[in-house]
C-alpha cells in the first residue's frame, strides 16, 4: 500500500512539472506578447503607445528575454509561493484569483449538489420504472438538457428574467450590496442570486449522469443476486438501494477526478455570459491578453487539481467498491 502511495506521489509531482512546462510553452505559442496585446488595446481606445515605450515595457516585464529564462524565473518564484504579478490587473496574482476562487467553488459546489440531487433519484426511478411514462419524460428532458448548449440556455433565461421579472441580469450581487460589507442581508442577496447560475450549470451534467445511472442500474438489476434477494422476500426498496445502487455508483466516484478542475474552470462560458465573478472569465481574459503569470498560474492550478483529483478518485473508488480494495490485497 505504502509503495503504491509513494509511486503515485512521485508520478504526480513529475506530471505537475510537465504540466507547468507545457502550460508555459502553450501560452507563449500565439504570436506577439502582452505588450502587443496592450498596444492593440490602447489603440482600440484611441491611445498611443510609441515603439520606444513598447520596448521599455518589454524590459519592465522581462519579455525581452528568452522563453526558458522567463520560465526559470517564473517557476522558481512559484516554488517560493510567489505567483508573480498579473500584468493586466497590475496586482499580485494571488490577490486577483483570491475572492474569485471562493465564488467559483461556491457556485460549482452548488451546481454539483443540484446535479447529484436531481440525477441520483431520477436515474434510479428511470431504471426501476423502465419504459414507464415517467422514464420517457425524463429521458426526453435529459436529452434536451444534453443537446442544448448551456450558454444558450443562460442567455435565454437571463433575457426572460430581465424581461418579465425585472431581475438583476447577471452577477452574484445586486448593485446595492456589491459595495456593502458582509451582512445577513448581503448573504441573503447572494443566496437569491445563486440558483440561476447553479441550475444552468447543473443541467448538462445532470442529463449525462441520469443516463449513466440508469444504464448501470439496469445492468445490475438483472443480476442473479437481485433475483435471489427478491426471492428471499427482501422489501423492494431495500433490494434496490442496498446493493445494485451502490454498485452503480462507481461512475460517480470516478467523476471526482474531473470534479476538482471543474470546480475552478467548469463554468467559463456560463460565467462570462452571466457575468459571474469567477475564475473562468479570468482565465479566458488572461489568455487573450497574454498575461503570462496569471494564465500560467490558473492553468497550473487546473493541472495540479486534476492530478490531485485523480489521486483522490482512486482512493474513493477503493473505499466504495470492496471489489477493487480486495483485488489489491
Amino acid at each position, binding site marked *: 500500500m505504502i509503495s503504491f502511495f509513494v509511486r503515485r506521489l512521485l508520478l504526480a509531482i513529475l506530471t505537475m512539472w510537465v504540466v507547468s512546462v507545457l502550460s508555459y510553452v502553450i501560452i507563449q505559442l500565439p504570436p506577439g506578447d502582452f505588450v502587443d496585446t496592450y498596444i492593440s488595446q490602447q489603440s482600440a481606445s*484611441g*491611445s498611443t503607445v510609441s515603439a*520606444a515605450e513598447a520596448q521599455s515595457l518589454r524590459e*519592465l516585464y522581462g519579455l525581452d528575454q528568452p522563453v526558458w529564462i522567463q520560465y526559470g524565473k517564473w517557476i522558481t518564484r512559484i516554488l517560493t509561493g510567489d505567483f508573480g504579478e498579473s500584468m493586466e490587473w497590475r*496586482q499580485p496574482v494571488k490577490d486577483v484569483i483570491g475572492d474569485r476562487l471562493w465564488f467559483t467553488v461556491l457556485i460549482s459546489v452548488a451546481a454539483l449538489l443540484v446535479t447529484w440531487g436531481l440525477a441520483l433519484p431520477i436515474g434510479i426511478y428511470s431504471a426501476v420504472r423502465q419504459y414507464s411514462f415517467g422514464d420517457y419524460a425524463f429521458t426526453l428532458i435529459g436529452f434536451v438538457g444534453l443537446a442544448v448548449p448551456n450558454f444558450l440556455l443562460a442567455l435565454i433565461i437571463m433575457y426572460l428574467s430581465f424581461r418579465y421579472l425585472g431581475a438583476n441580469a447577471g452577477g452574484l450581487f445586486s448593485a446595492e450590496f456589491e459595495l456593502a460589507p458582509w451582512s445577513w442581508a448581503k448573504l441573503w442577496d447572494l443566496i437569491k442570486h445563486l440558483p440561476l447560475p447553479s441550475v444552468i450549470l447543473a443541467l448538462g451534467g445532470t442529463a449525462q449522469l441520469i443516463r449513466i445511472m440508469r444504464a448501470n442500474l439496469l445492468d445490475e438489476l438483472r443480476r442473479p443476486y437481485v433475483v435471489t434477494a427478491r426471492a428471499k422476500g427482501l422489501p423492494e426498496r431495500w433490494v434496490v438501494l442496498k446493493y445494485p445502487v451502490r454498485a452503480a455508483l462507481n461512475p460517480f466516484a470516478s467523476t471526482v477526478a474531473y470534479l476538482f478542475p471543474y470546480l475552478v474552470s467548469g463554468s467559463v462560458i456560463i460565467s462570462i*455570459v452571466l457575468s459571474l465573478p469567477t475564475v473562468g472569465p479570468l482565465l479566458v481574459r488572461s489568455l487573450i491578453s497574454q498575461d503570462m503569470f496569471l494564465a500560467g498560474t490558473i492553468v497550473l492550478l487546473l493541472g495540479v487539481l486534476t492530478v490531485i483529483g485523480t489521486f483522490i478518485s482512486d482512493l474513493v473508488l477503493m473505499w466504495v467498491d470492496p471489489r477493487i480494495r480486495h483485488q489489491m490485497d
Partner: protein
Amino acid sequence: MTTSRRQFLTHSTAVLASTVAAAEALAQGAGGLTASGLVGRLEGSEVVTDPARMPRTFKEAPELAQLVQQGRLPPVAQRLPEEPLVLKPLNEVGRYGGTWRRGFVGPGDGENGNRINASDKLIFWDYTGARIIPSIAKSVVMSDDGKVTRVTLRKGMKWSDGAPFTADDFEFWFEDIYSNRNIVPTGIADLSPGGRPGRIVKIDEVTVEFQFENPYFLLMDMLAGDTLIGGGMSVGMYQQRSFGCYAPKHYLKQFLPKYSSEEQVNARARAEGFEGWLRMLHNKKDWNLNPELPVLGPWRTVRPINTPTWVLERNPFYYTVDTDGNQLPYINQIVMTLAEDLEVLNLRAMAGQYDMQERHIDLAKLPVILENRDRGNYDLHLDLAYNGSDTTIHFNMSYTADAEIAKWINNVDFRRALSLGIDRNQMNETFWLGLGTPGSTCPAESMPQNPGPEWRAKWSTLDVAQANRMLDAIGLTRKDSEGFRLRTDNGQRLRFQVQTVRAFLPWPQQLEMVAQHWRRIGIFAEVREMERVLAFTRTNNNEHHMHVWTNGGTELLYLFPRHAIPVDPVEAFMGPEFAKWYASNGSLGREPTDAGLKRIFELFRSAAGQRDEQRNNTAKEIWKILVDNVYSIGTVGQSPALMGVRLASRRMGNIPSRACIAQHCRTPGSSRPETFYYKS
C-alpha cells in the same frame, strides 16, 4: 488681429477665431436624422468669463460641509483657488448628491473613468469640439514667433489631498519623470517640434513656460487635445504611461530613487510586493489603481479598477464652481460595475441599471434599446461623430511580398475602381440602421479641416460600370469562368486578402458584404477574420494587402493622424515601411515613391510650425490628396456607432441632447460630467 489671436486664452477668453463659424455649423450637422428626435442640438455648459457674473461666495455639498464642521476639512473658500473656473450649467444649477451607476469591462478599461475626469487638462475643448477653453490653466499665451508658450496657473489651487498645486509639479514631471530615461526611454514627438526637443521651465509659483527652438503653433491644439502632452494626468499617467505635463511632486517623489536612494526605493517596492521601484511607480502614479494618488479632476478613486467595482468619489478640492458658487461636481459618487461580457453590459443598461452610459453600447441593439426606454426609465440620445468613415479599408501602399498584388495596390485607378464598386447605402442600412453618412474618408463638412462638400462623394459612390471600365483600361481584362479577373503574371485568379478584426463594429461581416459587391467588378477578396494581436503583428511586418479599421480621430488631423496618414509605426495600416521611414527621419524603413504620399509627408511635416488658418489649409490640401488617391476607402461614417448611443436616466439633469463624440472631446468629458445631477 494677430495680437488678439495670440492672446486668445488670456483670462478665460478662449475662442479660436478660425473655428467659431464651424462651431455654429456643428450644431446643425445632423441632417434628416434630426426628425427622429434622437439626434438633438449640440449643447453643453459654458465657461463664464464675464467678471460681473462670477460668484463671490461659495457653497459646497452637505457631506463636505459636515466634514468642515468637524474640522476635518478646510472651508470651501480655502479649498478653491482664488479664481476658480466658473461653469454655467447647461440647463440649471443642480442639486448635490447621488450615485452615478455605470458599467466597465475590466482593468484595461481605464479610459472609462479617465474621460469622465478629463477636466484635469491645462486647456480643453468645449462642448462644440471646436473652441478651446481654459481648464486648470487660467491662461495660455503664445509668443509671436510660436517658440515660447506661457501657462498661468490658478493661484491657490490644490490637489485632492489639499496640497498646493504649483509650477513645481510641472518642473517635477519634466525633470524627474519625463527626463528620467528609466521611466520614459525616449522623448516624445509632442515635445519635439521639428525634431528638436523642447523644455518645460518654472518661472514662478504659478507660471510655467514651454520653450522650443522651432515655432510650435500647433502646441495650443496639442495641449487641448487627447495627446501625450495634453491628455491631462488621468490619461497621461495611467497604466504604463508617464505623460501629461505635471505630476504631484509632494506625493510621487517618495517613489523615485533621486529623492532617497535606489536601494531604499527598491526595498520599499519589494516590501509592497513589486519587483522593483519602476513597477511600483507605474502602480502608484495611476489614479485608476491607487486611491492615495492626489488628483485634480472632479472625482478620485476610492476603490481601484482591478476590483469588481471601480468606485470614484468627489474631489473636495475640485477647482470648478457653477454660476451660483456651488463647488462642483454635483454627484457624490460614481460606481462602475464590472461586466465580463458586452451583452451583459448592454442588457443591464436597458434594464435601467446604469444612469448614464455611452461607452460599450452596441448600435445594433438600437431597436431593443428604444423599446425599453420607459421600463428602464432612460432617454436615448444619438451623438454623431465627425470622422468620415467608421469602416475604412486601408491599402498597404508599402506591400512588396507579391509583386503582382503590389503593382495593383499601387495603381491609383485600381484603388478608385474598388472604391466605386462598393454599395455604401446597403452597408449603411444593414449595419448602421441608416444612421451613418456614406462617403469618403474626409472629416465632416462642419469641421475646420474639411476640404469641401464635393469631396464626400469623390470616388465614393456606387458606379459598377465605371469601375469595370477602369479595371479593363488598366489591363485587368482576362476573367475566369466565375467572372473574376486574372493575374497578369501567371493567369491565376487575382486574390486580395482583407484583414479584419472583430473590434468596434462587426467588420468581418461588413467586409463579406463588400466582397459580394466586388464580385460584380470581378475582384476576388478573401476576407480574413483575425485575432487582433495577430492582425497587428502582420501589419507591423508589412504582410497585409488591406486592413480594415476605423478612421476615428482624423477629424482633427494633426492631433491624431495615424488613421489617415502612415506616420506612426504603432498603427500604420497604410504602409508600415513608410511610417518607419517617416518616424525615424529616414534611418529606417523605405521612402515612398508615390508622388501623392511624398507630397502628403512634406505637407504634414511643415504643419506644426504654421499658424491656425494656414495649418487648416494644409490639412485640407492633405485631405484632397488622400481622397483623390484613395489610399484608404471610406464607407460609412459620421455615425453614432462608437460611443454615440447614449442612455441617460430621466432622473438626471443637465444632460445635453447631443454631445460631441470625437477623440479630442474625450467623450463624455467635454459634456462636463461634473454638472450632471439627480433631479430627485
